[in-house]
């Protein structure tokens, strides 16, 4: 069995690395075709990423992406496609900011309250899709697309000064008001003004561990994975499929609600019209790229954050920033294609082994020896 695992490890790494090389090569072709220097952009990006302040940005952004991707991954593990992470995230951040700004509590309590509100709101919003799916059979793909847009409208209405928002004097922005300092999540300051790593980034990492543990070490996680692998088999095994759909939708939404927290608690301390959007969609990409595996998602989140941030200064050097988007697309494609090729190769090998050992007729003895 050891040998299988070593093979798997090698294969597991060879795939993505090869894919990255292919993606870079293709991007280089694009650059060449448009008559640009094919190497300079990479150098600029790597240079830029070698500075501490950009590194901090990358890590912070990765934390947010990580949570969004975990939210998506929880659904994917069940074959539920939660496109609504973006809406859940925005609505949750907004409501949490509202509540956070309207109360004053001792530090940890204040933060806890905000986080809980965010999770509840996120869960509520995704729960609508879950409820409609379990009771009315409405496809979650459609309902979450709709709920994203409805969330936009709802947030726009709630944040009106005549409702719950405010418009700071002299500003053209609308906000929910500032959260008192007791509700700020302390960050980890870096030397020489390189900024600080949001404290919530560590919580995000913790969520990853929790995700792994819950999925691989608990009964609930087993049921969830089983349902994702085969709904009919899971049902026969005693899983209440409807309850599972609803539960995982709720969890997914709660985690989506958390995705706004690094920014809200660590930086802006308020929700305003220019609060980052589109996080949920990036989360889908990252979850898929990371194959719904907590470690894979972490690496993917870092990769995408790296591409985002290190490419930010490309335009100042006369290069088109869009090259980073193209690169992202190419990376996703080549990575998943290589995963697939590696997987097929792995399956063939496994089957061959099974076949060979059966043919040799000593499958049993091998097994017994291994057991001893």
């Amino acid at each position, binding site marked *: 069995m050891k040998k299988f695992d070593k093979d798997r490890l090698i294969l597991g790494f060879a795939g993505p690395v090869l894919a990255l090389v292919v993606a870079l090569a293709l991007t280089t072709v*694009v650059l060449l075709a448009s008559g640009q220097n094919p190497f300079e952009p990479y150098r600029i990006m790597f240079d830029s990423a070698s500075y501490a302040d950009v590194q901090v940005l990358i890590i912070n952004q990765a934390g947010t992406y990580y949570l969004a991707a975990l939210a998506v991954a929880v659904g994917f593990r069940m074959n539920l496609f939660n496109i609504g992470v973006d809406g859940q995230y925005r609505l949750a951040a907004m409501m949490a900011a509202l509540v956070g700004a309207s109360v004053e509590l001792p530090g940890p309590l204040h933060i806890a309250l905000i986080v809980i509100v965010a999770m509840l709101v996120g869960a509520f919003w995704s729960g609508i899709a879950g409820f409609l799916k379990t009771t009315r059979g409405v496809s979650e793909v459609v309902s979450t697309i709709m709920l994203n847009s409805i969330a936009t409208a709802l947030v726009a209405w709630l944040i009106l000064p005549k409702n719950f928002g405010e418009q700071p004097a002299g500003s053209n922005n609308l906000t929910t008001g500032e959260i008192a300092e007791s509700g700020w999540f302390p960050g980890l300051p870096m030397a020489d003004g390189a900024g600080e790593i949001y404290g919530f980034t560590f919580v995000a990492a913790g969520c990853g561990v929790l995700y792994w543990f819950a999925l691989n070490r608990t009964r609930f996680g087993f049921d969830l994975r089983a349902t994702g692998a085969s709904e009919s088999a899971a049902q026969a095994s005693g899983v209440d499929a409807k309850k599972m759909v609803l539960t995982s939708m709720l969890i997914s939404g709660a985690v989506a609600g958390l995705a706004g927290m690094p920014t809200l608690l660590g930086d802006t301390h308020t929700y305003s019209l220019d609060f980052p959007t589109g996080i949920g969609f990036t989360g889908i990409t990252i979850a898929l790229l990371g194959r719904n595996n907590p470690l894979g998602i972490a690496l993917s989140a870092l990769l995408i954050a790296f591409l985002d941030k290190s490419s930010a200064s490309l335009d100042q050097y006369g290069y088109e920033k869009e090259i980073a988007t193209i690169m992202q697309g190419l990376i996703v494609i080549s990575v998943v294609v290589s995963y697939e090729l590696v997987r097929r190769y792995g399956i063939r090998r496994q089957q061959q082994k099974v076949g060979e050992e059966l043919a040799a007729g000593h499958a049993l003895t091998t097994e017994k020896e291994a057991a001893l």
Partner: protein
Amino acid sequence: MSTSKTTAARPAPQKGNGRRKLTLPVVLLIVAGGLALISLVRLISGAEDITSVGQVAGALELAVPIGLAGLGGLWAERAGVINIGLEGMMILGTWFGAWAGFQWGPWMGVLFGILGGCIGGLLHAVITVTFGVNHIVSGVAINILAVGVTRYLSNFAFDGIQGGSSKQSPRIDPIDKITIPGLSDWLADLQQHHWFLISDIAGIIGGLITGLSLLTVVALLLIPATWWILWRTPFGLRLRSCGESPVAAETLGVNVYKYKYIAVTVSGGLAGLGGAFLAIVATGIYQEGQTGGRGYIGLAAMIFGNWMPGGMALGAGLFGFTDSLKLRGGAENVHAMLLLLAILLVIAVFWQLYKKKYVSAAVAAVVSALLFTWYFLTDQVPSQFVDAAPYVTTLLVLSLSAQRLRMPKANGVPYRKGEGK
């Protein structure tokens, strides 16, 4: 225990059409009833715009890109490939459509828009069919790639050209529009009288034949054409068999890969046409971000329509209609819709009571009462809620209508030649 009518678990239905099939008279009756209801609401609320010629024409124009994307989704998914990359293919359509359109005229633009979408579709086919990658990942990647590529290319293709910039193309010449001279005016006139039912019908027919772009006609024709090709030709039968049971198709000598490739490429082409329509007919210009999620809405419309062309068109029409309502003085129009919804719910209450589903009936009754209250206590709906109208409507329709959606059985399932059991 009764001695009668127990049938076997899987009884052989006595007639070929044992399934739910709405006959034409029933459909017509439902349509007529709906129209009468809308007309009634119009009279009560005074929102004369809800069935005006302009409203219907506007709805049509807003529905066409969504419908084309949905049709694209239909082709791909009928052949078993989920296409979440419609948005990206649409973006390619807008870009290529505009790029060729401003240089060589609108019809070249249409052609190139289709080609642009086809490229996206082909890429999706390569990734999903040849490499067997998860269809959703591939679609998401194509969406990213399309955004990146079009933005990148705009820097070279549009920037510095008169009327263009790195975000938009120069203006494209319009495509001819047809209006049947006497008839259109007469219908518009008729509509202006605001008579019960007659004006509404006049408005709807008028809206469908006034200022109709030739490309709109093409798009409309594509719906029955798709139905005919997929359900009435050997080609369509083979294509659909790839979405239902590719292994069975394979055993009968169907080249499943080929049909999947064709379907997904056509799917991209249709989405591209939707994009080209946006750029050339709807706006006359390429504009970064102008698709704005319509590909996803198209996908939703297709699921809404149960993977059938007619249903999909209905879904796209619903989006177009509510979108148009909201854009054309939404506060008032959507306010009127509250009344419509409330009345519909009253009907639902009676239906549920008839079916002895008391809980559902109670829920519907409460919601209906709330809507009536809302309607009578206000004159307008806040603009923020107006914006949500198309989406709320869709959710409501989907959750109230019984769920009998059936997607192609092998949709999204990876297929490899020779691996069938």
